[in-house]
């Protein structure tokens, strides 16, 4: 197990380096730079600014400079949020995105797995229909539609919840964003669980258990263990995506997470901000895939890391 963790972490370093180098190049290939705005800067002033942000250096030197800072844990200055370093911005925004992401994943797992089991155990009748309808809705309706609908329903019509804002993470301000984030995940988790659970319930070992006359909940519990494997595989990338924030949810609900930095940074050519997001997302994907592999070893007896 330890060996697995170490080899995976070691192989993550070249992967992340390649990701950093590639996105560094891609950002520089995009037309324009961080100081191109509606009001064009005087060329003399532009020269000052490029010097201050080391953008006057040749590209390899800029990359070397960036890597050197990165190795020291310095993500660089932001060219858009000019009073802050990227470290400052992420120190505040990342915990917020992670918090919402964890809550959304927890909700998606609890509700999704419950729905999936329900749909698999009662194959016909209103329960299965309800599960199918809900998961189809969750998959088909994009979150930029769901979010305003929830705002209108709970914020404006019923007046139960605030329409938006973060308010230092007040619970009432988290309900709608978490719900919006979780809805498509609930749908996917429910579908995955339902399909896997159906297969598992039809498997020979479950039939054997039935033949022994074990109670239904006991049989279902056995089937569920096998049925969770596809959910687990899906969870790795899904968690990385959810924990790094969603531009749509953060913009509509006014949440100060890092999802917006990715897009805002790219649009305003805030190189360091985009690079930092890439590094964080890359690291999260590596870490979560590793966690999923470890969990596989725990859940699936056929997989053992020795």
């Amino acid at each position, binding site marked *: 197990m330890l060996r697995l963790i170490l080899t995976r972490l070691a192989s993550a370093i070249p992967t992340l380096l390649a990701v950093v180098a590639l996105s560094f190049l891609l950002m520089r290939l*995009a*037309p*324009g*730079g961080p*100081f*191109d*705005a*509606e*009001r*064009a*800067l*005087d*060329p*003399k*002033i532009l020269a*000052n*600014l490029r*010097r*201050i942000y080391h953008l006057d250096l040749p590209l390899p030197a800029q990359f070397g400079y960036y890597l050197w800072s990165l190795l020291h844990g310095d993500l660089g200055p932001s060219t*858009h*949020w*000019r*009073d*802050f370093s990227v470290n400052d*911005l992420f120190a*505040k*925004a990342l915990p917020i995105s992670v918090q919402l992401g964890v809550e959304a994943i927890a909700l998606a797992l*609890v509700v999704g797995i419950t729905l999936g089991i329900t749909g698999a155990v009662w194959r016909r009748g209103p329960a299965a229909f309800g599960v199918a309808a809900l998961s189809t809705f969750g998959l088909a309706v994009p979150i930029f539609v769901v979010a*305003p609908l929830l*705002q*209108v329903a709970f*914020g*404006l019509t019923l*007046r*139960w*919840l*605030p*329409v*938006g*804002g*973060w*308010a*230092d*993470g*007040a*619970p*009432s*301000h988290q*309900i709608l964003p978490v719900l919006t984030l979780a809805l498509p995940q609930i749908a996917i988790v429910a579908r995955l669980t339902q399909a896997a659970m159906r297969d598992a319930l039809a498997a020979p070992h479950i039939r054997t258990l039935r033949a022994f006359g074990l109670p239904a909940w006991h049989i279902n519990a056995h089937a569920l263990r096998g049925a969770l494997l596809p959910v687990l595989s899906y969870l790795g990338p899904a968690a990385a995506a959810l924990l790094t924030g969603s531009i749509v949810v953060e*913009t*509509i*609900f*006014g*949440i*100060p*997470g890092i999802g*917006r930095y990715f897009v805002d940074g790219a*649009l*305003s*050519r805030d190189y360091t901000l985009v690079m930092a997001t890439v590094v964080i997302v890359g690291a999260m994907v590596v870490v979560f895939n590793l966690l999923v592999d470890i969990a596989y070893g725990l859940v699936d007896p056929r997989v053992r890391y020795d």
Partner: protein
Amino acid sequence: MSAVAGASPLSVPLPLAGRGRGWGSIRLPHGLKITTTPTPAPPPPRKGKGIAATLLCLLPALFLLAAPARADTIWRRGETADPGSLDPAKTSTVVEAHILDELLEGLVTYDNKGVLKPGVAARWDVSADGLIYTFHLRPDARWSNGAPVTADDFVFSFRRLMDPKTGAGYANILYTVKNAEAVNTGKLPVETLGIRALDPATCEITLERPTAYFLAQLTHFTAQPVYPPSVAQYGDAFARAGRLVSNGAFRLKSYLPNDALVLEKNPYFHDAAEVALDGEIILPLEDQSAALRRFLAGEIDSYDGVPVDQIAFVRAHLPDAFKVAPSLGSYFYAFDTKQKPFDDIRVRKALSLVIDREFLANSIWGGTMLPGYSFVPPGMAGYGAPSTTGWKDESPFDREDEAKRLMAAAGYGPEHPLQLTFRMNQSENHKATAVAVADMWAVLGVRTTFIVTDATTHYAFLASKQPFDVVRSGWFADYPDAQNYLFLAESDNPGLNYAQFSDPTYDALMHDAAVQPDAGERQKILHKAEAVLLAQLPYLPLMTYQAANLVSPKLRGWETNVIDHHPGRYVSKVE
């Protein structure tokens, strides 16, 4: 009214009291209390239903927390974007200017009607040749830590602005100050800049040449002061909550990017007795539709934008809150006047004649724009009514005939149609406008191809000076003077003269205006220059912007004005 004390309730985290068992009393932000009768404790949850039961009990508590109750004297102010900086040497956007105006006060400033008035300077003298301005600072001007605002603070701030090491993007606005350009480009030391402190209460600024709009320029954020000890202590990172010392009506309490800026009343402000608000919460809300919903829910008191596709709804349902007023912004297209066939005035004029500006302003933009027949927007201080195109009131049919005649004379017609490429930045409104304009041009047989890019690519393309046919452009005044518009066509303004317009007559008029000491004469010359521009049409004026705001009727002292400037020191809030 008392200032917000150190332990302001504004940032008190919302406690989730009671944890689902009957919550007694819940403390809401702003010190308000909602007391409820404790509900009986639920029966011990049965296995399997525990989570659901707990959740059910929690829900009403959460809803109560969301109840729209808050302190009366906090202006919750939605703005369309997050400020990129609160350092007046590094700001650039309109939103940043709005926020800095709450925090900082320059030598002169604007009131809530957009009228220039004394700021830190109580009065000033101008030398007979118009070159030397002597500002007498008010004795009661104080920083938010109680220190007096001195002439040396302004000397420090101006020098810092022009110091090339600062990298101030807008420093060139104040190139009107003596030696500013040479200092900013590193040719002269900062000490040679034309500003000095005669004594702590007197500041003298020497200009490069007489500049009629210099006082208006001093309202710009580049001329706002920074507190020298903070800059000495924190360097460029001084403009953060907990560090920023300001001299305006408010001071910064906290700031979380993309979330909120919390401002509290500055008790040391010289006019603090007249400031009714205890503070402001400025919320950057990029999504205009979401902001409208928050306004409807009463979560914000004002917002400086209205989504164009919701204008009809807003007009119908929020007539008292919807404020539209002309502002100093123009929406225009630019021709590359160095590029064939757009070097031909006949082609430019024909393309202008067939545009139905009323349709664009009223149908595409829902009446949030005004049809534009001038280059300088109406309402410019001292300029009076701008010059307009001569054919403004001709019938559309006459204009179309004239346009066809001009196109034919230039060699274009049905058998030889003009093909042009139009570049714009991505935006639904820009696209809808361009498609409508292309359709109007089609009556002349013009075939338009579109290139739509993201904003940065668009502006980088313009800055690169590559040849083009027609581009979308626009301008908002930095300071309310016609010169700040007309300089867009000066041949020695390579950065902003997107049309590459070069006309000796025009340049001569602009030079004459710059050195003309008499204000009235100067405006006449500027009018002549605008007439040249409208005859030559390097820029194709389409519309002038109006500022659209949603303002709760609870806010008093919020006035519409051409500079769309709404200082909180004049605003009060009633419930």
